[in-house]
């Protein structure tokens, strides 16, 4: 099993399973950037592993900072909001250095949160997540 990592966090119950991820454009866009001589700055941010999220999400500043364009749109709903538009972006999540996943993530406003991205079930579909509350750790493996 590759990409095993155990993460000890200060307060797993309070903060949830947070880890650092690097977010890049997908390879097709990186190739376009390379051919144009365009550079981009990978976005290294805290991400929440959220089994309650069907899709991975990023703060809307991240696609802007990467300089990538939208490739879709969907709507979000919650207990208090419905019909809220959200653009979709094609990005690469790099987790644990060697776990690379291209996903079509949604964007939203993460201001005030201790994380700037959510690792949803589209990424977790290829992972094993072990939440060990009594040791205040979680393990995410590929």
């Amino acid at each position, binding site marked *: 099993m590759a990409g095993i990592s155990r993460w000890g966090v200060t307060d797993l119950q309070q903060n949830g399973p947070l880890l650092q991820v690097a977010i890049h454009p997908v390879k097709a866009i990186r190739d376009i950037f390379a051919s144009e001589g365009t550079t981009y700055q990978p976005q290294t941010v805290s991400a929440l592993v959220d089994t309650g999220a*069907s899709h991975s*999400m990023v703060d809307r500043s991240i696609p802007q900072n990467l300089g990538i364009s939208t*490739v879709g*749109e969907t709507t*979000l*709903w919650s*207990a208090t909001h*419905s019909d809220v538009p959200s653009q979709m972006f094609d990005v690469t999540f790099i987790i644990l250095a060697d776990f690379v996943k291209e996903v079509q993530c949604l964007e939203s406003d993460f201001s005030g949160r201790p994380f700037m991205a*959510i690792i949803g079930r589209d990424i977790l579909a290829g992972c094993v997540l072990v939440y060990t509350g009594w040791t205040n750790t979680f393990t995410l493996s590929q």
Partner: protein
Amino acid sequence: MEYPRNRGIAGLRHSQNSYVTSFRPCVYTDGMSENNVLSDEIETFNANKDHLLVEASGKYALVIGSEVVGTYVSERDALTEGYKRVGNKPFLVKKIIQFDNPVALPVSLTL
């Protein structure tokens, strides 16, 4: 019968028209801005949806501007073709299904 637009998913599923034809958002919440970058593409998709459902249900449509470029078995194939045609410019890749499934906003972003 008219249903309020902000009744949530239950209201949407029971609206008279298909969900996609009533796609344009009417509720904007704090910090969530209107995004109409793809308004032409969405309009084009909706205008062609009936025949796309007949010809390519379950596939992914690639829409650029007012043109349905093609349909693809995989989402990645549609994205690849989109990048090939317009590069890093906005385009729409959308699954061809009768009703969209709105995505539940994670609780971690709502509390």
